């Protein structure tokens, strides 16, 4: 759409635009485009290119004819600028993810998730087929499904970063509380959350502990503004360098309580060892105090935990079964109680140590007041309940109830996507889960997370697969996949993986796939071949034929005649090949000399020995053979070549595809051959055929549409004479 610049605006402005400082919110975002065209710009054309690219053509005023503008200065009169609309961070692939994951990293995740997704879909289809065959789904197969989904989930989880590769809080330098590690991302955190709650059935018995682990990995992501255990410890770490006597600082004891409340036992034990009573010069005076600190450290490190195993570096006593755990817990609580009531506390002179340690003991005993005080975020309080108050919490209902209680105790205003997601999970509301995924992480997350949601949840399964008339009769699952596929299509590097997703959409996927393939650029042969390969994989023969035709026309137009013909041949496009043949006849018709014919050699070579596919070009091939043979015959090599030439001539004249306008040139070319030989080369029937053709030609000459070929006027007569004499000799020779 051309725009004509309005007068009166600033120089170079096509449409007047004023940015008022008052309504900054309502003002549309402005992108500056450097076009390099000297002002004033007289015309602007805007059109959509592939994907997110917008092509903006800026034209300056036309240079007056002969105005001498040349040479003086090379100023661009116009330029086409490509503007990438997706780059602004608000692109369709965007959402919040882009803050922590850049585009190239997101593409890496997109590529990596393709094989896992494809494998899961093929397994799903195989199971569905098997079920359809036997009508009753086999129980064992059904039971295995979540394991397939778990495998899928682990594969994708590993793409999102691998914080597990470095133990979360390993101690290197004894004074380091939190070890540096790969920065966790909320994308990975959300993925794990979904995996924990929806897929991994092995976790069912120790889900609370798994949640505690999850919090240890991702506590730093819970909120950006409010306090967390992670932040408390980070702040204390900064302060630690300047602290002379750590046990006098309240932050030391707060940090200890916070770490203990969320079960980071290794950190607690490490921090307890910072206590001044461990220093050799003070050991004698503070013997009792040190004994108490050490006793607490021992109790912390032997806390019973209901889980099969612990990662290296983590502390606690693992109990595999519930009775074991109950027994161990009773015993451990007894020990904690005993220490709490011990008489040694009176002998401990340091007030802050006494209070701090007692606070830790109360946390271990599950005192709700101490836990509430020690934790910062409601999720931390939630996790501390699992550890110290209700280790047997099972089922979404119980957890949700607990979560509500924690939120009441610690209301939070800065809710990240993670808390919203957890809320949706615990309230058993797949709609909320999907909405949170969309809002925070965009289409990639939704498309891939749907598989987790439906792994073992009949309601989610029904909700996602129900065909909805209000969105065109497709299911929500298909809708989300289509949206994701569109995002992939909008980038020239990722469009190739979109077919995997489109092909899993039964209703509209194939139609969109065809559109996608037809829209791919055809300028580059290699890209065309890549597109055709996808057509082959999805058995889209019609689409590939169309692409070949489009490619053929492009190359033909740009002078790459051979490549053009090649694509038409591949597409079996007889109509266009015939048109091309006509064009070539025009060219050849004008110059039948041998030299110029050599120019067409390459093209004829291309046409192949079997000419069925070449359409009207078939003639050219035979014509070439005739010419070649004629040349050999005229060089007088053998009588055999002369005979062969004449055979080619007869074939050409018999063939209906030989254009009439070539009859006379063909015969004229052969005149010398017919005359120079002592014995006749043509028999009576052949000569009669040629004479008949000649007669037909003479008749056609009278018609208005007859096209004359630049041959000498006597050509017809000389041919007629040669044929007549040949006929005479042939009759004599005839037995």
């Amino acid at each position, binding site marked *: 759409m051309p725009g004509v610049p309005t007068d009166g605006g600033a120089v170079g402005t096509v449409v007047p635009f004023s940015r008022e400082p008052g309504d900054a919110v309502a003002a549309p975002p402005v992108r500056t485009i450097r076009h390099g065209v000297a002002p004033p710009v007289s015309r602007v054309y805007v059109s959509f290119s592939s994907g997110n690219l917008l092509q903006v053509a800026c034209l300056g005023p036309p240079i007056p004819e002969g105005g001498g503008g040349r040479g003086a200065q090379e100023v661009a009169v116009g330029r086409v600028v490509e503007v*990438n609309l997706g780059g602004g961070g608000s692109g369709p692939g965007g959402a919040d993810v882009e803050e922590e994951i850049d585009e190239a990293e997101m593409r890496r995740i997109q590529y990596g998730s393709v094989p896992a997704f494809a494998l899961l879909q093929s397994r799903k289809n195989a199971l569905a087929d098997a079920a359809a065959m036997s009508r009753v789904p086999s129980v064992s197969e059904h039971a295995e499904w979540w394991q397939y989904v778990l495998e899928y989930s682990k594969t994708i989880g590993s793409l999102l970063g691998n914080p597990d590769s470095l133990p979360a809080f390993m101690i290197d330098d004894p004074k380091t509380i939190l070890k540096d590690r790969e920065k966790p991302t909320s994308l990975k955190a959300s993925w794990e959350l979904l995996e924990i709650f929806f897929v991994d059935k092995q976790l069912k018995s120790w889900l609370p502990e798994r949640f505690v682990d999850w919090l240890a990995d991702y506590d730093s992501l819970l909120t950006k503004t409010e306090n967390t255990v992670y932040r408390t410890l980070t702040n204390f770490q900064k302060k630690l360098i300047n602290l002379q006597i750590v046990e006098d600082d309240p932050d030391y004891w707060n940090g200890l309580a916070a770490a203990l409340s969320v079960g980071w036992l290794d950190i607690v034990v490490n921090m307890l060892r910072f206590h001044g009573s461990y220093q050799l010069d003070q050991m004698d005076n503070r013997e009792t105090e040190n004994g108490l600190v050490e006793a607490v450290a021992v109790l912390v490190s032997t806390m019973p935990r209901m889980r099969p195993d612990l990662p290296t570096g983590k502390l606690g006593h693992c109990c595999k079964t519930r009775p074991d755990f109950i027994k161990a817990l009773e015993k451990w609580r007894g020990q904690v109680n005993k220490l709490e009531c011990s008489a040694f506390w009176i002998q401990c002179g340091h007030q802050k140590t006494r209070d701090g340690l007692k606070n830790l003991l109360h946390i271990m005993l599950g005192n709700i007041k101490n836990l509430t005080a020690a934790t910062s975020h409601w999720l931390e309080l939630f996790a501390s309940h699992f550890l110290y108050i209700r280790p047997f919490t099972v089922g979404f209902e119980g957890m949700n109830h607990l979560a509500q209680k924690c939120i009441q105790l610690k209301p939070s205003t800065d809710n990240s996507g993670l808390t919203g997601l957890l809320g949706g999970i615990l309230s058993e509301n797949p709609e909320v889960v999907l909405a949170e995924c969309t809002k925070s992480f965009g289409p990639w997350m939704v498309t891939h997370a749907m598989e987790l949601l439906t792994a073992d949840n009949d309601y989610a399964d029904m909700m996602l697969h129900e065909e909805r008339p209000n969105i065109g009769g497709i299911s929500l699952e298909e809708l989300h996949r289509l949206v994701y596929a569109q995002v992939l299509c909008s980038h020239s590097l990722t469009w190739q993986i979109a077919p995997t997703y489109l092909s899993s959409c039964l209703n509209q996927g194939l139609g969109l796939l065809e559109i996608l393939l037809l829209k791919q650029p055809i300028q580059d042969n290699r890209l065309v071949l890549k597109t055709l390969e996808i057509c082959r994989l999805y058995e889209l023969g019609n689409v590939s034929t169309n692409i070949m035709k489009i490619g053929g026309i492009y190359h033909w137009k740009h*002078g*790459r005649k051979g490549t053009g013909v090649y694509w038409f041949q591949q597409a079996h496009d007889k109509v266009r090949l015939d048109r091309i043949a006509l064009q070539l006849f025009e060219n050849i018709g004008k110059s039948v000399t041998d030299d110029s014919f050599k*120019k067409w050699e390459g093209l004829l070579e291309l046409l192949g020995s079997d000419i069925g596919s070449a359409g009207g070009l078939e003639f050219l091939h035979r014509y070439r053979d005739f010419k070649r043979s004629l040349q050999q015959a005229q060089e007088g090599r053998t009588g055999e070549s002369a005979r062969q030439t004449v055979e080619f001539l007869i074939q050409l004249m018999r063939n209906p595809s030989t254009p009439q306008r070539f009859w006379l040139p063909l015969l004229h070319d052969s005149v010398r051959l017919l005359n120079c030989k002592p014995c006749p080369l043509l028999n009576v029937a052949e000569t009669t055929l040629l004479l008949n053709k000649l007669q037909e030609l003479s008749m056609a000459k009278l018609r208005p549409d007859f096209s004359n070929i630049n041959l000498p006027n006597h050509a017809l007569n000389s041919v007629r004479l040669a044929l007549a004499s040949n006929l005479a000799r042939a009759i004599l020779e005839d037995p």
Partner: protein
Amino acid sequence: MADSDSLSFRRHPHPYSVDLVRWLPSSISSDRLLAAAVHDPAVPYSNHLHLLSLPDPSSPLASLQLPSRATALRCSPSVLAAATSSGSLHLLPSFFDADSAISVPSGAGFHVGPVRGLDCGGGAGGEEWVTAGEDGRVHVVAGGGDGRVAVRRVWDGKGMAGYEAARWASPAEFATGGTACGVQWWDRRKGDAVVAQCKGIWGHGTVTGIVHSIDIHPSRKHICVVGGSSGTIFAWDLRWPQQPIPLSGVGLDGTAQPVCESEVWEVLFDNYTQSSDIISSTSTRILPVMMCSEDGILAVVEQDERPLELLVEPCAINSFDIDPQNPSDVVCALEWESIGVLTRGRDSMAE
């Protein structure tokens, strides 16, 4: 044959498309170096040649901007050359010193459109590069040492045939291949003319294909191995020009198993894989050939043998190169914006 268990493969993701990748001679540096042609469609003018080093090729040591996307990349012992989709040629005599780069611009005097056929040959008067483009032109570019080049047009097909591959056989002979024109053998001693021609093994009639890559073994200069459309790999022996020897292909009768069904982008003779039949090394048997394909296969094919798959990737392998100095190592450019380095373990392999 290499034991498939002893393969080690590493993918190195890059934030842009890696179109071509080659090993560089390690004599110029103690590190092992790679050259890669990269392209980022999101950023304008972002076609580059990157110099990368192993074991961590994630960030380039040096880079050179190209006017358009690279379509061919080759290196001689002293020069790295790249041809582009617009038809220009760039020679870097002392690797990645941008000042010493010599360019032959595209246009009427050279190529217009993609140049995919590029190879270096050593004539008597120094290095000579042959270029063959989709525009049907064939050039020989000589020199490059003293900062000047001489371009000579060998043939102008005027678009009647498009060339996709070129390879020197000797200082006087080279082979080209392309869109449906099969393979041509050019002899400069006979007036720069095509002296032999092979239409390939795509069968007859409607079934034709494009030649994407040609390799000629230095010790057997009369044999070309050719990779092209429909998983086709064949050897063409000049002594029997009418009978190309199929190594792999779809729809061939019996003799060759298809290693893949899609485009074979590159072929190279594989010096690392020993021919399974030792006696045959003097016979007419074709030496083992490595190939990469659009459907993500990197494999070694041999006459009358099952193909040995080295990699089966979920995405296309657009280009690969075998380290000439250390042929157990293979580097490949993967469609999904990454470079793969494959090491075939056999300790006895000499440097």
